[in-house]
């Protein structure tokens, strides 16, 4: 799993967008498309290369109930595995 200090950022060539057809946030990348739920979309929007996993969890807690840093770390790890984000630290 990704550590709480890790700082995720979208990889080169990855674009976040909104798809009206599916009424969902999506990420577009060379290998394909990921359709995101609301929380995942919020996490992706904070993968800016400056905010740590812990920082993302704190920001999300202002908007959603019951956000744990563990959940954010797990989601970031899945995005890393899909080569959507990179992590520093």
């Amino acid at each position, binding site marked *: 799993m990704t550590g709480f200090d890790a700082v995720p950022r979208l*990889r*080169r*060539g990855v*674009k976040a*967008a909104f*798809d009206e*057809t*599916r009424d969902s946030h*999506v990420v*577009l*990348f*060379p290998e*394909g*498309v990921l359709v995101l739920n609301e929380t995942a979309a919020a996490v992706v929007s904070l993968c800016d290369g400056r905010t740590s996993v812990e920082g993302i969890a704190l920001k999300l807690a202002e908007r959603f109930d019951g956000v744990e840093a563990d959940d954010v770390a797990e989601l970031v790890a899945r995005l890393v595995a899909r*080569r959507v984000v990179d992590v520093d630290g």
Partner: protein
Amino acid sequence: MGEAPGADAPFGLLAELTHRCPLRCGYCSNPVDLVGRGDELDTATWCSVFDQARALGVLQVHLSGGEPLARKDLPELVGHAAGLGCYVNLVTSGLGLTPERLAGIDHVQLSVQDADEAGANRIAGVKAFGAKLRAAEVVREAGLPLTVNVVLHRLNLDHVGGIVALAERMGADRLELANTQYYGWALRNRAALLPTEEQLARAGEVVADAQARLAQVMEIVYVIADYHEAHPKPCMHGWGARQLTVAPNGDVLPCPAAGVIEGLGVENVRDRPLADIWYSSPAFTAFRGYEWMREPCRSCARREVDFGGCRCQAFQLTGDAAATDPVCTLSPHRGVVDAILAGGPTEVGHRAVVR
């Protein structure tokens, strides 16, 4: 939108802008019946295809062919697709690639034929190696992600270590090593292209080592040789499930090879809206889902993994597009594949030139 039940919206459009190409790769999967320039869709029609595709749910547009750079209107087509919010992927041989032509493109897939110039030119039928090295530089200088695509076969499988080194030198983010799929010209040249078991075993080891060594630098995707496997590939992730292909003349196909299936009922964007074709054209509904399956696929646990394999391959090798892909060891036709594997090699030929 008049959706037929069971069909989801597609994510990807493979736009085969033209079949014209300066190369003549003996492994080319383009159909043997190539579309001539005079039958290609014009600029306005392609733009309308992109509009319709985006409205249908397409988010990724793969511009391919033939050689997409052979289209003079490519910048206009790229601009239109990008303007719709699509992720634009250029699939190219690299000949004619300039910085100007990269505007609006999100990702480039550049094909390379072999580790060195002589081998590459031999299979391509023309001198193209140097131009590809320059094309890779142009992509890198533009700051775009680069995937290098290499089709593997008897003549280059032993050089796979050198091919990995070449992709590293070219600065690729990803390397796709795809064993030849036998469609179009590759099917015609199959005897010359089929590798031996020993070649595949050795190449498999080299690739696994490179994948481990380069994990942080370059992703290596290895597409196995399906004739040599016990189960077929999950072709297109299911028929009419995620992607559609529009051929240079506007024919709308579930995959680029599907034109070979006789009586499929292929329809054309000049005659009918793209969404209607996706949801209700016989070519798309024929093999969507699981209803069309017969035994052994119908009651097989793997049917959700491989979807019964490839319909085009089933048609090409058994004459029946609804048969189990004969690559499968459970298929009553597996003997056809084994007999092909037992045959000896021949000289490789080249793809025809189309004007």
